């Protein structure tokens, strides 16, 4: 009985301390790696990628008279070492000059952006009725207006980023 008790106690001590002692001995040169392994820094490097996060660059826009929609095209360079999926974009478009709300931005479908590549992002801006009145009264005869986007919100891989500053879109066509 005493032998059995001793064996069971030995098992308890060995199973409790053995693995812990083994990893401490294995990592005794670098104890911080016990808690933060190399893969975590690798993951951070992959996340940060080769450079800074780049904001989408406005490329062009087209006005569709039939649907009263402006189609905006942006170039987005994915500086991360990881493929991204842009799921949604939202924001309020305002006239830069008069702060009049012109419409609401949305993404035309989801967009896959491969790591390290630049992809075109199609964004739709549905104009409000007030926008058309505004163009007639405050911008008569103008072919384009300067627009700013407020509360621009991007959903990338279910990570939602909302910019606190407005984004300027110069010379957006309105005819």
């Amino acid at each position: 009985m005493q032998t059995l008790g001793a064996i069971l106690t030995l098992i308890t001590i060995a199973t409790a301390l053995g693995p812990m002692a083994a990893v401490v001995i294995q990592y005794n040169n670098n104890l911080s790696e016990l808690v933060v392994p190399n893969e975590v820094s690798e993951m951070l490097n992959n996340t940060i990628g080769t450079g800074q996060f780049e904001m989408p660059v406005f490329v062009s826009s087209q006005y569709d008279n039939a649907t009263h929609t402006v189609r905006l095209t942006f170039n987005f360079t994915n500086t991360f070492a990881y493929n991204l999926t842009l799921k949604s974009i939202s924001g309020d478009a305002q006239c830069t000059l008069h702060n009049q709300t012109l419409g609401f931005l949305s993404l035309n479908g989801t967009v896959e952006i491969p790591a390290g590549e630049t992809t075109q992002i199609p964004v739709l801006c549905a104009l409000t009725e007030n926008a058309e009145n505004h163009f007639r009264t405050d911008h008569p005869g103008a072919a384009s207006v300067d627009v700013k986007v407020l509360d621009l919100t991007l959903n990338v891989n279910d990570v939602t980023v909302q910019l606190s500053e407005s984004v300027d879109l110069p010379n957006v066509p309105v005819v």
Partner: protein
Amino acid sequence: MQRKINWFGIAGGAGTIALIVVSLFVPWWIFKVGSGLTAGTGLIEANISPLNANFTGIGTDSFTVPLIWALNLTTLLTLTFGGIIMLIYSFMPMKPYSKRLLDFSYKKPLYAVAFFVTSLVIITFLTKGLLGFNIPIVGSANVQLPQAMTSGVSISVLVSADLLWPFWLSLAVAGLCIVARLYHRRIAPSQKPVSAQPTQLSK
């Protein structure tokens, strides 16, 4: 004389071994941050059980944390010995040393469950205390990262967590082992140690 067997002990011991095997492949708790490229995956994922914990992140293969790996191995060995000894006891519950085997083994799954639940609670408290946001133990939530961490830009992340079926299996196994301990009283009532001196009968 019919040989007595503690059937609950057999179920508990076999359940413990099954739980070990299952837990190496299916986590007890899964936690996802954002969404990955394929459906159902996360941008960052943690697959946690007391026997196996691994993490996948952006552009990395699955990895583990050495300290957690040691704790996992401790639980694995503890449960393995617990399960085997519970099975040995169950086939010979009437031996003089059986009670000792039972006492050693029946608490092990319970300890594993308690260790796991305590760890989850500590993780949620630490996340709240150190990083300032709540993470769910079950369900999904939009976690708003503190502005101090995001240079003034508002960033919220969809996180989801779930307890998977091996966790419920572990509760069942822990329950069976406790029932085995209670059943032992019925099949092997405690024997009083025999006194060395003959008892004097009072007149």
